[in-house]
């Protein structure tokens, strides 16, 4: 099953991705503007399932890596994107048949969309998270392993950057650390040196992708975005629209009363407190975040943990609220959405469960909340 998306779908895609971004993944406004500027009215990008990709062919994931705040001064770099694509394309050992997003959350799906439009190739309906996560080893590709040795490139506005070794000699699991974490640390060093925002272009093969891709996430983002847009247009409840589109559930309708944040080891950690209003009056939620929302306590009881999705959405407008714009007085609904089954296996939970973020908690799933 494939379908076409157009320039007019960009706003819905960005809105839906921001909901799936769980408070992180970057400000999607600039990405959206760049996409709307570069895609013409006639541009059509086909969205296909990974199983419709030609066997033995390859797909490329262009992605931004870095600080979301830096991206507010340095909008998406097309120079870096082009440099990355030019670096990996000649090294392909087969046909390039698609582009895809490593991460659906936030602005990341804009880059593969632009690349696909430019190359006249389809976009895969899927990503490596089904949401946003702060680190590279938290993708399903790192968790389940993909074909080694395929070309990768790091780039910036200055062009191609030195690439750290992807496959660290330390065999996965022997050090107790999640696979891919060495690459993540090395890339972050390059990123910091290079102005806080760089681009990673990676090639994957069809076989690996059909095994590891979180399928359907582009469609899901579009569905959420369109539902909110039509709720706004018809003055109906945008929260209900998100819940219906994403099989989610509301945990609390309230207002932000307090935000505590702390800066540790390169990440924005904190807690936001939300007090219930209307039907939820008397209840309160406390949501812990590390760039993204991770744990929800409802009236002091943990009811949901990462990797399930936690989104804070403005009650009135359905606009997702990212962790960097949290402030007392915002009227929000705390929403839970289910995680992809690929993220909730015992092996995946080591990389993306509560313990991976330093919490001594078991994974508490959406289904039990």
């Amino acid at each position: 099953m494939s379908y076409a998306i157009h320039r007019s779908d960009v706003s819905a895609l960005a809105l839906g991705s921001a909901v799936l971004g769980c408070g992180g993944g970057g400000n999607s406004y600039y990405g959206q503007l760049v996409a709307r500027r570069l895609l013409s009215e006639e541009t059509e990008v086909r969205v296909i399932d990974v199983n419709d990709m030609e066997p033995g062919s390859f797909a490329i994931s262009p992605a931004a890596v870095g600080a979301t705040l830096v991206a507010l001064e340095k909008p998406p770099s097309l120079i870096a994107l082009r440099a990355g694509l030019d670096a990996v394309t000649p090294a392909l050992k087969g046909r390039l048949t698609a582009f895809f997003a490593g991460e659906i959350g936030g602005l990341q799906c804009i880059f593969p969309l632009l690349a696909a439009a430019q190359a006249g190739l389809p976009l895969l309906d899927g990503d490596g998270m089904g949401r946003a996560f702060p680190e590279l080893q938290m993708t399903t590709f790192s968790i389940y392993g993909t074909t080694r040795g395929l070309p990768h490139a790091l780039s910036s506005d200055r062009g191609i950057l030195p690439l750290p070794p992807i496959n660290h000699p330390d065999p996965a699991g022997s050090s107790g650390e999640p696979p891919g974490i060495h690459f993540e640390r090395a890339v972050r060093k390059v990123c910091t040196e290079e102005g806080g925002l760089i681009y990673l272009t990676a090639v994957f093969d069809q076989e690996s992708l059909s095994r590891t891709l979180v399928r359907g996430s582009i469609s899901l983002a579009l569905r959420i975005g369109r539902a909110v847009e039509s709720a706004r247009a018809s003055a109906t409840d945008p929260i209900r629209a998100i819940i219906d589109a994403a099989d989610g559930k509301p945990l609390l309708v309230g207002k932000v009363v307090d935000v505590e944040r702390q800066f540790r080891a390169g990440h924005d950690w904190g807690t936001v407190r939300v007090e219930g209003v209307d039907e939820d009056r008397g209840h309160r939620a406390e949501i812990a975040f590390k760039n993204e929302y991770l744990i929800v306590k409802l009236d002091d009881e943990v009811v949901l943990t990462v990797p399930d999705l936690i989104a804070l959405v403005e009650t009135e407008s359905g606009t997702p609220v990212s962790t960097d714009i949290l402030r007392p007085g915002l009227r929000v609904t705390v929403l839970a959405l289910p995680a992809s089954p690929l993220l909730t296996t015992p092996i995946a939970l080591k990389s993306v469960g509560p313990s991976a973020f330093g919490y001594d908690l078991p994974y508490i799933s959406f289904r039990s909340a």
Partner: protein
Amino acid sequence: MKLVAGIDVGGTNTDAVLVGDTQIVGWAKVPTTADVYSGIVAALKKIGGAASASRVHIGTTAFTNALVERRELAPTAAIRAGKPVSESLPPMTDWPDDLRAAVSNQSYFVSGGREYDGRPIGTLNRQELAEIARRLSATETTQAAVTSVFGTSYPDDEVRIAEWLVAENPRLQVSLSHRIGRFGILERENATLLNAMLRPLAARTLAAYQAAVPANLFVSQNDGTVARASRAVEAPIFTVASGPTNSLRGAAILASSQEACVLDVGGTTTDAGVVHLGYPQPAGLDLAVGGVRTNFRMPDLCSVGIGGGSLVDLETGEVGPRSVGFRLTEEAMVFGGATLTLTDVAVAAGRIRLGDRSRVAHLGAETIARVDQRLRVRLERLLENFERAGRNLPIILVGGGAPLIEALLRDLGRKVLCPERADVANAYGAAMAQVGGEADLTFSSTAISRPEALARAEREAHRRAADAGAAPDTVTTVELEDAAFSYLASDAIRVRARAVGDIEDQAQ
């Protein structure tokens, strides 16, 4: 006693108050005139003349209106430093077509700009800028807006660019982004461009105001402070959201309350906002001015359709949102009309005396109780939007419809303050304004600790407040917040501070 005059030039009325030692000693409401000037002169005359005032503070919508109506805007050159960074989003991306059409702005990308840690992205090039300055001279463009990447943290490039441009083309007026906007390059650049486009109009308008006002002239700004007219001509964009800010602040000071919820009950709606430390709590979302996104914030306001003219449904007790509005004195039952309004119910309940009470004698206690019950629920919900944890804010009630709901709010167990002269809260807010300074800085904090980073931003905000005319010993910090640059191995943080203080009159 030192006297300060506050003037609010609204669409309908020009209000003026004369304030001495925080007390209103004179006030006036006159119709706004087409030339604005004669309305101001008339209002000042009524309050005893500006001669007795040491300062006059004016709140104006002149610049907001110019942007909304797309008139009297000066063609401007957008100059962005940081090439090739940010070229994917050129200046004026996402502007409404009619605004683009109304002004023929040009845009240029030049070398310069910084990384988050202060390292240059490229080297500034004097030749490149001289060439632009000559071209602007040829097209008789007098306004330039300069924005450099990470300019709020590292303003030197913008300052240097302005020097070089003016050296080549002395007629050029340059607006610098770090003095106008905040972090976020496109929104900051938008605000800087709008500012530049307004400067010639601001110079004309403020000269006219100054002619009407033989005293030191100050202009109301978005954040509840005022700027000297001589400074406001350089930053007219700071005035675009000053109206709601002045009315919230004015109400709070009239009621002597630094922490309160303000309810303004009009004919059609009740608008609510909250003041914290005497200043309006800002909304989370950015402010679009004339359809252009900027990163200024508006006070957080919430409205419900409850007002003096709201229609009342006898069956359900529901009030509004439909209203007879300004036709209240014709259509309400107590005035001989046939429409049941909230005013009629209040008259029947004996809360206010208006019109002919016998005409609503048929409304029984049961009906009134039903309406009250609905109102209480809705008012409580409205107030809930502004409540913080563990606080039960007093309510400041202003506006013509205040008596309609005062008793109901008391029923809810709320402390209600009904200040006198609330009808000129806006002009009073302008008169009582202080001056302020803001700093939005980035620190690469491997070298400096978080407390030191906060302290430096605070010091810079205080310095800027003093620079704007504040008596140094009166300057206090009203906002201080920091955010981390997630995902950087070096612990870079961004800190924003805002400080305000009393105007030092001697310094004039």
